């Protein structure tokens, strides 16, 4: 069943309302072989997602947009800490796809202050591979940095350095802070609503064409952004990843306060190839 408010393409690939559990959304860890010591340092400590009822110290349980539970990504209270959740599938045919989500983003209500500059960023990424290329669209909402509001959407197209772990296993830190470029006209203020204990749900819609491996659209709430000049990371195909269709979300904190990203639901759909 598709939760209210979604506008999927012709065929729904999956419609995950987190009132029904994690449904395949899991923690991301870096690749390793034989020992966890082979992990890239930045990827050793991504935090696990959890099912949250959005319970606050001052107002109690709010519940999620469509029920009681949302998938919650929570960082550690260390600047730069990241939490990632992703779902791994494969695609049947090259066609347009669309990822929609209702999300809320907040810092932990540790202090009785506004806290709107504690969350550094959150984002959505895809991880795709056809017979020729691995393609990784990444879109990041840069909320704040060093106490200054940024409030803009960014993308990344330059691939990070790759660590070879063995002949058939590699790893790279693709969520790192370097290499982000402005989405043209990508400034956007998101409703924060005065207290870290109040969450407003936002709508996100990202379109990508698996035939051309290019973006088709980016919508967030009332805004539609121009994506003609927005590019994904592209690299020659990696071993054993053919037909991969992974979708992920992440959140990172800029201060010694935990950052939270809540996902009420996620709907991935596919269009009919023309």
């Amino acid at each position, binding site marked *: 069943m598709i939760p209210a408010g979604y506008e999927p393409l012709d065929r729904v690939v999956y419609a995950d309302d987190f009132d029904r559990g994690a449904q395949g959304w899991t923690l991301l860890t870096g690749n390793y072989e034989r020992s966890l010591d082979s992990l890239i340092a930045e990827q050793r400590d991504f935090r696990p997602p959890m*099912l949250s*009822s959005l*319970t*606050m*110290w001052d107002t109690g349980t709010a519940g999620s947009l469509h029920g*009681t539970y949302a998938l*919650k990504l929570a960082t550690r209270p260390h600047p730069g800490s990241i939490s990632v959740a992703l779902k791994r599938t494969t695609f049947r045919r090259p066609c347009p796809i669309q990822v929609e989500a209702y999300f809320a983003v907040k810092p932990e*209500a540790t202090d009785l202050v506004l806290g709107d500059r504690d969350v550094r960023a959150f984002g959505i990424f895809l991880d795709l591979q056809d017979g020729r290329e691995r393609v990784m669209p990444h879109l990041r909402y840069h909320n704040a940095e060093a106490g200054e509001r940024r409030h803009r959407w960014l993308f990344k197209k330059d691939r990070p350095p790759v660590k070879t772990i063995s002949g058939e296993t590699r790893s790279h830190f693709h969520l790192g802070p370097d290499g982000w470029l402005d989405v043209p006209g990508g400034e956007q203020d998101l409703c924060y609503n005065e207290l870290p204990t109040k969450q407003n749900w936002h709508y996100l819609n990202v379109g990508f064409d698996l035939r051309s491996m290019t973006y088709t659209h980016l919508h967030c709430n009332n805004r539609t952004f121009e994506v003609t000049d927005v590019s994904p990371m592209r690299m020659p195909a990696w071993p054993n990843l053919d037909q991969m269709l992974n979708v992920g979300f992440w959140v990172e904190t800029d201060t010694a306060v935990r950052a939270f990203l809540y996902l009420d639901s996620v709907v991935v759909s596919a269009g009919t190839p023309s």
Partner: protein
Amino acid sequence: MIESHTAVLDRDVTWTGEITTEPYEAGWATEALFFVRVLDSGGADAATVPVHVEISPDGLHWTRHDAVLSLGTAPGVYAAPVTHFGNWLRLSAAVPADVHPRVIVYLALKG
């Protein structure tokens, strides 16, 4: 069918001094099991270190639950069952300076 979920709260970390695991929400579950897999006990006195389960109404303020587990002196899996825990769970311990247990921490939830 009953829902179940296992979270990996720490992977291959060495506990030193005052430790707490990150807060984890589990309000949907009716029972929980903390597993601490000791990769290296890191000292003969590891078995004397009580590891307390803590609960919280808001994820910010914590109190001890009755559940407690002790680490062994040898690598292995040590567990503490927990019920009536509200929404938030974590582990807490004061590890002596001469003990450095290397652990993986799991929280297994069911309900």
